[in-house]
């Protein structure tokens, strides 16, 4: 027991302590406690209401997840206490709510997580020119001020561009910094096919839509007129959260049958009770050819009309020798290729089956179902085209739709159905305006294809598309707004490349892989901390979000960082940002448009009063629109109400199909080009030559590459195919460090039961996937719902290398991909081969039990 009175006596007896304490207090009082408590300012506290429910605000859900939903937060006393989703109107099939998913509802965990990057930091062993560059990714960090951070970044930009030229600066992806560096003399940039795969360039050349800006399928209400819906590599339940699955359910209720062609039995297939056709990744092209051969074989215009000859003759060129585009060799027609007239290799179902694994009888059945059903929706996601040598698949899939005439009519459609436009095509009914920021031309023309970004750094050269080899000497990597090191191919080379250059800097809100391998990290705000903005989703609505909280910690917006960096570089940021972020948001709202009742014209979306302009403190002109400014901001969404028979429906290619001569396409022939000279010619400036017609070529790192000897079917060193489904735990790589999502979605690797049994792998065992590019570990999930010989490794897990930097524990998909460019420059994540074995090291513990940060630092 403490005898306090005695203690006080002791204190008094020995004056030494007392004098020591008080004199220490006097001495240290002059040293400031820079982050301590201060006297509270008396302003700005008038809005609190402790007994009320607080204020609901529309919050951004800004991710590249494949959906776009309404997200709202309850702010109580400055704190976001909970979230909700769309309740702005009652839900109905015709006028659905835009409801969020588990990721959007986890966003408090993203914004307020203890793992936010709070301050600018520099790598401890960083020095001008790099300084122990090999320590990138495992060095200590030192907190620095914004001023010091921007001094370092700007002086390295200046030093490196003076020493090596502006080409030595590489701004990855696109964003505000590309603009700043363009103003500063330019920088190398990169480009690629990202999610689109081969749908990025090829479709437009042959006259079909790529599926993002330009939509080639009918709208969701017309989808209910389809009798058969083929989901070919399309899984909206996982890849397009929000309303798409619900929209497909309406077609199901209206009587549509579903077929799912996919390496796995997807959640969508289960939901729609689809017939599942298991197919090997990268072999959809062969399957499509087999189906088309069967159509030719079985078609009889009188007794068994499976092919729409009228459509082919009126709307396409290149199908047969009688309908070739001008100047093309008649022998190059597609029909004779299918029949094997000149190569003595008919592309029969038997031929296709050997490649794609679908039994010939099922291929014929598919041909009959697609050919004989009146109204078919042939829908594909981008996934099957995210392969090496993928252009031919895009051509073949489109040709199948043309051959069966499932285009341009109600209930009939063929095209890309994914991401924000899954199952719902047509022009945008609400269009966001422009912010009023400016951009400048980048004086540097070096453009790195995504498949060569890291080899360009390591080998000092790259292929400039359409031109040829160029030298490169990249010495500075600026990661502005992307996950380049995590989500581009050949990650192990990427890490090596990051350790080669003289300087690496990243903007990041948590320690992303980009940031981890940097010299300097600059903390950015999340969208909840910005002035507000607009987000496009499906065609019927536009999301508007407002500021939820002030920037946390020392985070700044990308625009603010760009302005500050421009100032350090001695540039006039007004040339890029002549206005404030608030004015930019206002401008965007003020210039937004909504479809008029007639379904043709557009009118202003927002009503703005003089009072609004004054309250916002911006410049503008009052205008009459559909919805008041405050109402829109509070509501968080504007959605056009739809009903069957309204003026907002859409039948893709309708006017062209009805009158091809009167409404020609933007192709040289004005028609769909089954024989497409443009693709062929363009590919000559690319990486591998693409045939004008959809001729099958074995895909690099595809099924054929799992064999040492294809003829005898002797398997090779890497006998498995591995592909990367999008996984609901993440949006690409975003959200991967959120514990409740890790708990809900444990991220195993999906393996067919028979493969597991053969290799002695049991459910939950840790397995090693490996090939010449890298090694990665995951717990095994054995299932009958995978095609045998195929492994599904979910996309986007944050790499976590072991201490020797050899084996990744997180299941990062790009540990298994290499720097392979094919065709027009397509990135082919879904064609990769590997081997698999039970891991003999320490088994993985569940991801949710990992520490939240990705890197163990000791």
């Amino acid at each position, binding site marked *: 027991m*403490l005898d*306090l*009175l005695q*203690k*006080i006596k*002791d*204190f*008094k007896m020995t004056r030494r*302590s007392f004098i*020591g*304490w*008080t004199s*220490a*207090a006097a*001495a*240290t009082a002059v*040293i400031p*406690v*820079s*982050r*301590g*408590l*201060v*006297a*509270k*300012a008396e302003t700005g506290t008038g809005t609190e209401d402790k007994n009320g429910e607080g204020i609901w605000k529309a919050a951004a859900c800004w991710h590249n997840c494949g959906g776009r939903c309404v997200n709202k937060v309850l702010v109580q006393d400055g*704190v*976001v*206490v909970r979230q909700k989703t769309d309740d702005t109107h009652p839900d109905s099939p015709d006028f659905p709510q835009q409801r969020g998913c588990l990721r959007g509802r986890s966003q*408090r*965990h993203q914004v*307020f*997580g*203890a*793992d*936010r990057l*709070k*301050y600018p*930091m520099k790598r*401890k062993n960083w020095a001008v020119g790099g300084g122990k560059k090999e320590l990138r990714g495992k060095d*200590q*960090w*030192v*907190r620095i001020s914004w001023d010091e951070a921007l001094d370092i970044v700007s002086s390295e930009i200046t030093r490196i561009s003076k020493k090596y030229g502006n080409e030595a600066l590489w701004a990855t992806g696109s964003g505000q910094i590309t603009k700043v560096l363009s103003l500063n003399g330019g920088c190398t940039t990169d480009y690629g096919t990202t999610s689109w795969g081969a749908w990025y360039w090829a479709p437009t050349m042959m006259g079909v839509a790529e599926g993002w800006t330009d939509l080639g399928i009918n709208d969701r209400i017309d989808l209910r007129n389809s009798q058969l819906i083929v989901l070919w590599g399309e899984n909206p339940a996982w890849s397009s959260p929000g309303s798409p699955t619900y929209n497909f359910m309406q077609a199901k209720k209206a009587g549509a049958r579903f077929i799912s062609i996919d390496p796995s039995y997807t959640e969508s297939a289960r939901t729609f009770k689809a017939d599942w056709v298991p197919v090997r990744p990268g072999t959809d092209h062969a399957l499509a050819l087999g189906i088309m051969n069967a159509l030719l074989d079985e078609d009889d215009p009188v007794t068994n009309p499976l092919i729409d000859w009228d459509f082919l003759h009126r709307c396409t060129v290149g199908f047969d020798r009688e309908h070739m585009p001008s100047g093309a060799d008649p022998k190059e027609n597609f029909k004779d290729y299918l029949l094997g007239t000149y190569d003595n290799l008919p592309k029969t179902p038997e031929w296709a089956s050997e490649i794609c694994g679908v039994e010939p009888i099922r291929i014929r059945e598919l041909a009959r179902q697609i050919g004989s059903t009146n109204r078919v929706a042939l829908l594909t996601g981008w996934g099957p085209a995210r392969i090496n040598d993928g252009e031919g698949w895009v051509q073949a899939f489109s040709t199948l739709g043309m051959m069966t005439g499932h285009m341009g009519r109600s209930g009939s459609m063929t095209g890309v159905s994914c991401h924000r436009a899954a199952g719902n095509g047509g022009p945008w009914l609400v269009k966001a305006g422009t912010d009023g920021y400016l951009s400048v031309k980048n004086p540097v023309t070096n453009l790195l294809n995504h498949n060569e970004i890291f080899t360009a750094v390591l080998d000092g050269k790259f292929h400039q598309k359409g031109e040829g080899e160029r030298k490169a000497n990249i010495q500075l990597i600026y990661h502005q707004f992307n996950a380049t090191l995590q989500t581009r191919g050949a990650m192990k080379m990427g890490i090596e490349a990051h350790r080669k250059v003289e300087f690496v800097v990243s903007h990041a809100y948590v*320690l992303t892989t980009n*940031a981890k391998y940097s010299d300097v990290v600059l903390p950015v705000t999340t969208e909840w901390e910005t002035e507000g903005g607009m987000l496009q989703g499906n065609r019927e609505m536009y999301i508007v979000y407002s500021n939820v*909280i002030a*920037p*946390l*910690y*020392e985070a700044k917006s990308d625009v603010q960082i760009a302005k500050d960096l421009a100032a350090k570089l001695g540039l006039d940021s007004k040339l890029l940002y002549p206005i404030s972020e608030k004015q930019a948001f206002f401008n965007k709202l003020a210039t937004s448009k909504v479809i008029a009742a007639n379904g043709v014209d557009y009118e202003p979306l927002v009503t703005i009063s003089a009072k609004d302009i004054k309250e916002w403190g911006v410049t503008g002109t009052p205008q009459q629109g559909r919805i008041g400014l405050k109402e829109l901001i509070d509501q968080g969404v504007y959605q056009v109400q739809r009903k069957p028979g309204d003026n907002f429906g859409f039948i893709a290619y309708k006017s062209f199909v009805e009158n091809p001569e009167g409404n020609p396409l933007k192709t040289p022939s004005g028609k769909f080009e089954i024989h497409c000279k443009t693709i062929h010619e363009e590919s000559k400036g690319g990486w591998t030559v693409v045939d004008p017609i959809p001729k099958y070529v074995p895909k690099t790192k595809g099924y054929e590459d799992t064999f040492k000897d294809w003829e005898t079917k002797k398997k090779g060193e890497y006998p498995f195919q591995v592909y990367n489904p999008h996984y609901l735990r993440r949006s690409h790589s975003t959200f991967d460090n959120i*514990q*409740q999502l890790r708990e809900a979605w444990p991220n195993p690797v999906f393996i067919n039961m028979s493969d597991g049994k053969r290799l002695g792998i049991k459910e939950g065992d840790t397995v090693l996937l490996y090939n010449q590019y890298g090694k990665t570990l995951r717990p095994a999930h054995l299932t009958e719902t995978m095609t045998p010989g195929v492994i599904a490794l979910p996309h986007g897990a944050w790499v976590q290398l072991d201490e020797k930097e050899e084996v990744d524990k997180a299941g990062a998909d790009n540990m298994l991909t290499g720097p392979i460019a094919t065709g027009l420059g397509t990135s082919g994540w879904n064609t990769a081969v590997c081997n698999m074995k039970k891991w003999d090291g320490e088994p993985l513990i569940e991801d949710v039990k990992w*520490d*939240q*940060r*990705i*890197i*163990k*630092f000791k």
Partner: protein
Amino acid sequence: MEVTKQMITVEDALEIFHAREFAYDILRRFFIEEPSREYVKLFIQRNMIDLFPFQEESEEIRTGVKKIKDYLAVYNPGMIDQHYENLHWDYTKMFIGPFEILASPWESVYVRKDKLLFQQTTMDVRNLYKKYGFQAGELNIEADDHIGLEIDFLYHLNQLAIESAESQSATALQEIQYLLREQKLFIENHLAEFVPALVSKIGEHADTDFFRGMAILLQYFLIMDSKVLNELLNIEMIQK
């Protein structure tokens, strides 16, 4: 049998308040931010660790003091750059990042199932600060329930008690009683809820005996101080 209630004068209580001021000043400075070079130098030069109160009453406090003295016997972060940098990094690494934060310094992380910052836990603390006219110097930049700020709050409440004691005003006794009770509750409701877990994390992850020792002092001084506050609240305080 009659129990004689013990009594203490405000003047004597001030002795205790100054001891607390001294201890909390050290603790707040080493937990609120990376140690500043200037302070570390002074800390060593004045041999402040030797003066840390309640060593005689607590074996653990003696252990903490010893660890720090052992460290200072080998390292001199006041004078030698490398030693200072390592000490500085020890703080950064454990409490700031950008890698895994090895010893999260926020109450929220320990008491909330969702481990989120800037939620109710943070706001409860913020409201307490506000009650006494304080706010975090970096409002919304640093979460209010940071260990350093919570200790700083105790430091400031103790300062208010010192001011009251020295003012000799008519309400001084009431003010002191009130402030003592508030401090006791704050330790019980907030610091006691997470300091043991935090301290064990620091023990596990600190590179230096300095921070290991400081963590022990944090935990056991708080325990000792709770006893002190209890005693002070049980003894009748009188103004001379």
